[in-house]
Structure formats: C-alpha cells, structure tokens
C-alpha cells in the first residue's frame, strides 16, 4: 500500500534521513521506535509530504507521491494524520473540526459529514462534546477527536506522530484504546511512538530508527525479546 524507496531528507546540510526503504502492506500496523532526533517523525511527515523528501520515491496506492504532477491534496485525503499536539482548530466546535475537511473537499454533503462525525464520535464516547470547543476538552479527549477528524475522511492509512507524548499519563490509555480498536478493525497504520507496550502488543512490525537509518526491523517479539544490535539493546535498556 505504501512503498518507500531510498528516502533521504536533508535540512540545510544536516542529513536527517539516509536511504530509508519501507513497504507497508494493507491492514498492517507498523511502529517506529527510536531515540529523539533519529528521524522517526521526519520519516512519517515525508509520507504525506508535509516534509518534502530530498531524494527517493514514495508510492501510495500505486500513485507516486513524489511526482510533482500528483494532486497532493487528493492523496492526502486518503492518509489521515494524528499529531503529537493534536492541532485541533480552536476556533471551531468539535463538530465543525470533524466536518470541515469532508465538506471542503466535497467528499460529503454537510448532512452526510455530520452524521458520519456523530457516529464516529459516539464510538470514541465523545458524542456529548460535539458542540464544545477544543479548549473545553482534556488532552485525551482532544486526541481522540483528532483521530476521529482524520477518520472522517475515510482514509486508507492512518499516520500517528507520537500521539500520546503530550498527554498526562492517565490519559494515554484512552487514546491507545482507540488506536488498538482501529488496528483490530484492520486499518493500515504507521505509528511513531514511545509507547513500547503498544508496539509490543498491537504492531505487526517494529522498526528501530537511529541516526536517520533503519537499524533493525522485525516482529515485536524479535525486536523486544531478541534485539540483535548493541544500539537497540542499549535503547531498550533505557526505555523499558
């Protein structure tokens, strides 16, 4: 579904990603772990071209994302993204947050979009917040709304950029539960996280990124129980 070939990214001479290749299959949940500054977030942001790769090729649903002729807005509509800091639109009610994209991209009429939004809100237990503003919600609630906002576009893949890093510890669970549920329903997911428990429990594949390259990759069991490289062993020793 997503195919990344030899992706590199430089920020003014500083190489953040070096020759990263990855193939994500439909229905797979791939988790990136690694120390801060290892390029995990940059990699994720390259997938929907929030960062423009310096070189390499990204193909999504058979369409080249890196081709300048590709309608990037159309492609992004099929890739939901969830951010560390939620990035809900503070000037709109929750319902408006959820329906803005489907309506503006003409994917749905106002009625359809609102019905879908309410259905999804109900699933994450926030239907009574539809007319609240983001400022009135807790961090965990905001992040659940942010997930629903991405789901309202009926994406083929969901990208999570450290979705629980800005949350109070007691709110992490409620967000992870929603993500687990999504994974169980067969959503294709690419997740950058520091939640090793989530990586171990939910993911199909774990990639350990350090210094801009994939150092090790394997099933959660391989990565967590039988780390091969010294770098990964020392990383795990610190975070677990």
């Amino acid at each position, binding site marked *: 579904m997503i195919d990344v070939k030899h992706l590199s990214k430089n920020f003014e001479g500083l190489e953040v990603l070096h020759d990263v290749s990855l193939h994500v299959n439909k229905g797979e949940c791939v988790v990136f772990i690694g120390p801060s500054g290892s390029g995990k977030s940059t990699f994720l942001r390259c997938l*929907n071209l929030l960062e423009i790769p310096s070189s390499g090729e990204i193909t999504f649903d058979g369409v080249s994302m890196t081709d300048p002729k590709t309608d990037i*807005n159309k492609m992004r509509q099929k890739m939901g993204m969830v951010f560390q800091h939620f*990035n809900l639109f503070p000037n709109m009610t929750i319902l408006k947050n959820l329906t*803005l994209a489907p309506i503006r*991209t003409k994917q749905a009429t106002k009625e359809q979009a609102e019905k879908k939004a309410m259905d999804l809100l109900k699933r994450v237990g926030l239907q009574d917040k539809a007319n609240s503003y983001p400022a009135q919600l807790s961090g965990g609630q905001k992040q659940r709304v942010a997930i629903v906002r991405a789901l309202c*576009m009926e994406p083929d893949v969901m990208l999570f950029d450290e979705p629980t890093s800005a949350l109070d510890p007691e709110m992490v669970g409620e967000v992870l539960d929603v993500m687990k549920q999504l994974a169980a329903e067969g959503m294709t997911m690419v997740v950058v996280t520091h939640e090793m428990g989530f990586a171990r429990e939910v993911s199909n594949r774990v990639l350990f990124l350090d210094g801009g390259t994939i150092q090790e990759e394997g099933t959660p069991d391989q990565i967590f129980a039988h780390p091969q490289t010294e770098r990964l062993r020392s990383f795990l020793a610190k975070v677990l």
Partner: protein
Amino acid sequence: MEQYTAWKALITSGGAVTEWQRFYVYFYQAFIEKDRWQQYLKGVGTTLYVTAFALLLGVILGVIVAVVRTAHDQQRPGHRNPILGILNFIFKIYVTVIRGTPMMVQLLIMGFVIFASSKNFVMVGALTLGINSGAYQAEIIRGGLMSVDAGQMEASRSLGINYFDTMRFVIISQAIKAILPALGNEFIVLLKDTSLISVIGGKELLYAARAIVSRTYEAMYPFLGTAVIYLVLVMIFTWLLGIFERRLRTSDRR
C-alpha cells in the same frame, strides 16, 4: 431667530451681553443659521463613506500583501517559488514607501500630481487613504498570520484541504481574533485621518467646518463641534468592535 439677530447686533455694536447670550449667538451662527448643520451632516456622510471605502480597500490590500509575504517567508529552503519572490519584492517596496512618507504628502501627490486632472477629490482621497491603510494593515495581518501555530496549517493540509481553504477557514479566522485590537486601532486612525483629505478639496466633515469658519469668522464652535462629532463616531466604532471581539471569543470558553 429674532433673538439671534437682536443679540448678534448687540455683539457687533460692542454692547454689553451675558455669557449665555454670547454662547447662544455663536452656537446659532455655527450650527443653525442657514441650516449649517446640514453641511456638517453631509460632511459626516462623506467622512463615513471615505472611511468605509478606504477600510475595504485597505483590508483587501492588507490581506493580499500579508498572505503573499507570509507564504514567501514560510517557504521551505530549497523550494522557493519565483513568482512569490517577485510579488514579495514589490509588496515590500509598497510597504516601505507608504510607511516611509507622510500621509499628507501622499495625499498632495495623489491629488495634485497623479490625479491632477480629476475633479473627484473625495474618491482620490479615499483611494489614497485605502492604499496608505493597506500598508499598515498588511503588517498587522502578517503578524497575526505568523502567530497562528504552524501545526494548524499542517493539520488542515494533512486532511487534504487545499491552501486557500486552509487560509480562509483555519488560519485567517484565527489570526483575526489575535489582531482585532491592533486592527481596531488602525481603523480609528483611518477614520480620523479622513480629515486630511480636505487639503485636496475633499468635502468631508473638517472641510465643512472650515468653510463655515471662513464664512462666519468664528472658529471655536465649528471646530469644537467637529471634534465632538469625531469623538462620537470613534466611540460608536469602538463599541461595535467590542461586540465583534466578544463574539469571536466564544471559542475561548472553558
């Protein structure tokens, strides 16, 4: 009327008059005689018309300049758009020239050099004020746009919403709330600066007052009256802005 004529004669002949009689005569002369209040009213009409026109032009110019300059400044290194670069350069010159020269000089140049043949002084004045205000508003709006967290743009674009819809629904609507006090200030300055167009013959409120002064040789009441009218206009304006600001704050409720 009879009273006015009698007391006026008394003042002219140097006879003894009370303060009340003096006030009555000059007030009557400044506002009521020959229906002069209609001249002020007409002047206020022109003032409001010029303000509205200049405001609209200023906002349009300001938004365009601010959006282009922000888009230019927020480009990623290595992905510079040449058209944006040229526009940014032109707009920078515009802002520098307009902010770097006095409004009065701009009015005189527009009125007596560029549009020297035009007899529509009010329109030339409104145009000049709009162009002038646009430069100041551009910088205010630019500040507002840059104050919106970059994550807002990213979130909106990641949903597949295009750049212009993102600007319109997400960025600008949030920026407005942040810049409304500064923008309100600019609007008030603009309203008062309309008085300057009298120097190129625009018949607004101050022009009317000056015409009456030159007719009656009495300056105090026409000018005091003008000041009061401006004050009232600004107070109404401030009150309207306050309502608008409160409405925008609904999303801050916790």
